[in-house]
């Protein structure tokens, strides 16, 4: 089991992205790093905000992991939501594109560009579901 949202969890995702031909194809046109702000929910085991980042480039992930808030805010795109929302994304209960359009996931960056990448987002979510994830409110 890998704890979410730790650096080990992001490294597991990066490894899966590297092995995924379907993600490579779906995200062939994507350029730009994405930061994920997982907002604290002390009552659910996440006492402080956590920032993750993926450097995504034409179907590959060139690096990433847990980063400082300063590094996260410098990303081309920042997506933020409470921990519970991210958990819904990782478990497949919330479609991230719908979540962005409904304001459940808040995007800083060019929204039309990111919501066009429906297939890439879907592939990413499927990859997260391959990680045997341990959530802080279930630990």
């Amino acid at each position, binding site marked *: 089991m890998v704890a979410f949202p730790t650096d080990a969890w992001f490294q597991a995702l990066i490894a899966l992205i590297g092995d995924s031909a379907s993600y490579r194809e779906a995200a062939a046109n994507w350029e730009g790093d994405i930061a994920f702000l997982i907002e604290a929910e002390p009552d659910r085991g996440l006492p402080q905000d956590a920032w993750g980042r993926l450097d995504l480039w034409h179907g590959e992930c060139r690096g990433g992991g847990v980063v400082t808030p300063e590094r996260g805010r410098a990303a081309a795109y920042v997506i933020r939501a409470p921990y519970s*929302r991210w958990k819904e994304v990782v478990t497949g209960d919330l479609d991230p594109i719908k979540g962005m359009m409904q*304001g459940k996931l808040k995007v800083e960056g060019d*929204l039309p560009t990111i919501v066009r990448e429906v297939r890439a987002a879907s592939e990413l979510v499927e990859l997260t579901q391959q990680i045997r994830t341990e959530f802080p409110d279930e630990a």
Partner: protein
Amino acid sequence: MRAVVFDGVGRVRVDVVSDPVVEEPGDAVLRLTCAAICGSDLHFFHGKAPMSPGEGIGHEAVGVVEEVGDAVTRFAPGDRVVVAFDIVCGACWFCERGQTQLCEDFRNLGAGAFGGGLAGAQAERLRVPVADVNLLGIPHGVTDEAAVFVGDVLTTGWYAASIAGIGPQDTVAVVGVGPVGYCTVQAALTRGPRQVLALDRDPARLALAAAAGAVPIDVTARHPVTAVAEVTGGRGADIVIEAVGHPDAFDTAADVARRGATVVVVGMYTGETVSMQLGVWWARAIDLRFSGVCPVHAWWEGAMAELEAGRLDPMPLVSHRLPLAQAAHGYDLFDRREATKVLLVP
């Protein structure tokens, strides 16, 4: 007479100033019996809004009419009255339609040049222009201390809840339960919604809101989005009233609202900015309503009637009663959030 005046950023003092007199035929001069420190006084106290040292401050007061000008018809010496915090003409296109906050001659008491240079209401006496419009009589059964709230925060809460269009099945989230938010909670509850949620970070304010009948949500312990989602079937609140006036509160209000919600912003803003994805707001079909300053003249009779009937009760807010001479101490207490509401007795 003595009056509280601005003394530079973070300071007020009590000065001896000239007694007010009737200057215009529509004026009344009051002997004040109670004044209050308002959250918007802190905008001047903090230097966020312009004010020069020596200018009078304060806009919440009640008193007794001492003298009236020739054109005043509704009031006479000896009448107990509450003062509107915003001073309007009562005759322009906007005033005739009840939108007195948009008056062509809009002024604020105790707001320096920003408010039209009128004296402050934290004083022993006060000149009130266009008295027939800017004063309201106090019923026998209402105390001065309770009535002082009708001139501003109680009526502002009543107004916010009224324009929000609260229905019986609605979940109402009030973001920020300081004095205006607290009064908004009470006013919202009179509309019979399914529930009223009070979001704040201050335990004392949350306790007051809970005692009034709201469900308290401590946003330092719970993420507001998750907490509101839990009690609304995952949707978010039907009605959100932002009663703080800070970009973080505005963000919270937007975040806890369900799709198709009404968001009323009653908190006061000056130069703040926020970043919004307009496409998301459009897709969410959010009905966003900026209240502006409360058009108190159009709503205060209703608020006074609710107060007299006991359905609204601002008195739990009062944490301190101080003599006017201790106004500086009152400001410090209020600024440090060690007081929920400070009354000053001239």
